[in-house]
């Protein structure tokens, strides 16, 4: 079917492997995503905390630099599990905003323009479609969360020595798993909202709502019932607990209530406020992911069938 020939001819060249075709979607999507200068600038800003983190790690091991800055190494933040946990939480915040900007239009745009039959009439399944759309978010978010953290962990290991690396090897698991859980949750939620709501602005609002409305509700429950079980509905709190659990810094007691004698105003009892147990946090996150997958399976179809 050459331009000058103007006739219809079949294609019989080589074909790409079927397993790799879902990656076509992110490759084409990034062209549109990075077309926006505003988004590109924001994405660059996402790397600034990582730069700070790199500098901190470097300073710990550079005596000349410390002497020049007249800083004692003890005054610097120690490079330990809490250090990496803090930065993975900071990057998690940036990842949320990246997902908020990129996620909502991904599926909704296809639904609005009836594009799904065009994808699904090809050797390309619904699973591959969802995987492809999720890859757009997964790759973008991984690049600003657990991948650089892992590289910085290796950087720290290189500077500190093999003993430190061997002693903190478990942190690789915490960094990767903590990052992947957050990124996966964001990808699933943004895709689900995108599949349910056809309009981008409403989808973005809904995604914000999913995170903030339950958090406010949870805080209200905590306050009224003097508990921490309200956090079970707050995705942010759940992720924070899970990450802390992975880094070994999770403590169930996160506060206390002092019960005073009304007559003497003396504290007669101290009731500790307990966060939901880790297994409960994992279970709720798992449940949210399962619901998202079920909704995606329901919505991502070539055509809606009216029964």
């Amino acid at each position, binding site marked *: 079917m050459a*331009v000058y020939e103007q006739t219809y001819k079949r294609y019989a*060249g080589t074909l790409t492997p079927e397993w790799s075709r879902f990656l076509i979607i992110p490759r084409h999507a990034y062209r549109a995503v990075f077309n926006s200068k505003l988004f590109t600038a924001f994405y660059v800003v996402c790397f600034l905390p990582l730069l700070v983190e790199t500098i901190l790690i470097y300073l710990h091991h550079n005596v000349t630099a410390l002497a020049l800055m007249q800083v004692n190494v003890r005054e610097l933040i120690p490079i330990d599990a809490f250090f990496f946990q803090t930065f993975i939480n900071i990057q998690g915040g940036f990842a949320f905003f990246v997902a908020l900007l990129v996620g909502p239009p991904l599926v909704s745009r296809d639904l609005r323009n009836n594009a799904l039959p065009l994808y699904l009439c090809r050797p390309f399944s619904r699973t591959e479609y969802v995987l492809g759309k999720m890859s757009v978010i997964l790759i973008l978010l991984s690049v600003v969360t657990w991948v650089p953290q892992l590289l910085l962990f290796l950087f720290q290991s290189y500077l500190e020595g093999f003993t430190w690396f061997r002693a903190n090897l478990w942190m690789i698991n915490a960094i990767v798993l903590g990052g992947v859980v957050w990124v996966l949750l964001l990808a699933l939620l943004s895709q689900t909202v995108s599949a349910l709501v056809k309009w981008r602005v409403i989808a973005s609002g809904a995604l914000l709502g999913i995170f903030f409305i339950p958090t406010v509700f949870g805080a209200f429950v905590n306050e009224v019932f003097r508990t921490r079980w309200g956090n079970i509905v707050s995705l942010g709190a759940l992720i924070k607990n899970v990450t802390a659990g992975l880094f070994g810094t999770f403590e169930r007691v996160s506060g206390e209530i002092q019960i005073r004698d009304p007559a003497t105003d003396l504290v007669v009892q101290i009731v500790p406020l307990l966060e939901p147990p880790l297994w409960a946090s994992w279970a709720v996150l798992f449940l949210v992911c399962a619901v998202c997958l079920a909704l995606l399976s329901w919505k991502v179809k070539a055509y809606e069938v009216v029964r």
Partner: protein
Amino acid sequence: MALPATVHEETFKPQPVDEPAVIDLHGLSVAFGKRPILKSLRGDLRGRAIGLLGPNGAGKTTLIHTLLGFHPPSAGTAQIFGYDIVDHANKIKSLIGYMPERDAFIAKMTAVHFVRLMAELSGLPSEAALERAHEALFYVGLGEARYRKLETYSLGMKQLAKLAQAIVHGPKLIFLDEPTNGLDPPARLRMIKLIREIRDSGQAHIVLSSHLLVDVEECCDEILILRDGQIAVYCNLEEERKSNRKFLMLEVRGDQKKFVEAIAKLGCEYAISSDSRLKVVLQEGVEVRDLYQLAVETQVQLRRLSYKRDSLEDIFLKAMENGYGGL
């Protein structure tokens, strides 16, 4: 821009009987909930261009969607080029192209980017996909507009872009669902011309679903008429027209009155449309040579004798009145 080593050069041959049918329906049924849409469809469709006709709600689009794997059959199955639509869905999808009825595109993309993406999803490597995207857009007549965003296209241009994405990977079977919907007369003619060109290239079979009989008449050699989810007629259009040989148009010169009386004696129905023209329906056992004999006996000249060919509209209306059958 040519694809010398990668294209089939084979010429079209009608699907021989010993080869798998283009579409083979084995009691295919589809139901949405408890509502049956397609009811036990059976038959081998072997045509080069098959027209899919039927009134609204007859099941045309559902049949196409089921063959594309969008709806699971509730009973029975179908095969496309010998591959089962359930067991070999991916293999089938690599052989077919689909132009949906409704407006369908990917927003914020130029036409060439859109068609290239569709080609890549069909399995073409990136470079080949880009090359064929350009070629397909030139072929459908959107060469000059290929760098424009799809949202800026007119309805006619969008239809052509949909056709381009359906043919970019060079499928063996192309499903066209109402391809002339909403087109103005010149755009419609252009679309019909393209469909006929693809058909005549012999490189692909076409299934054309349309409610416009004239579109089907111009493009298709076989028709499948659906009614209430069942096959009302499946026939070769030309053969069906020829088979109705009992209805004659005559032009006579001479004593017409004497001639029609003789025809009536043979038991044939007739109608006089003018001084010299007659319409005659031959009865069982009466042949054309009997009319010649009558003409000699009554001393009239037969200046013209022709069979009335059924138009597609006649076939369609007959199918709607008569019920099911034809296969």
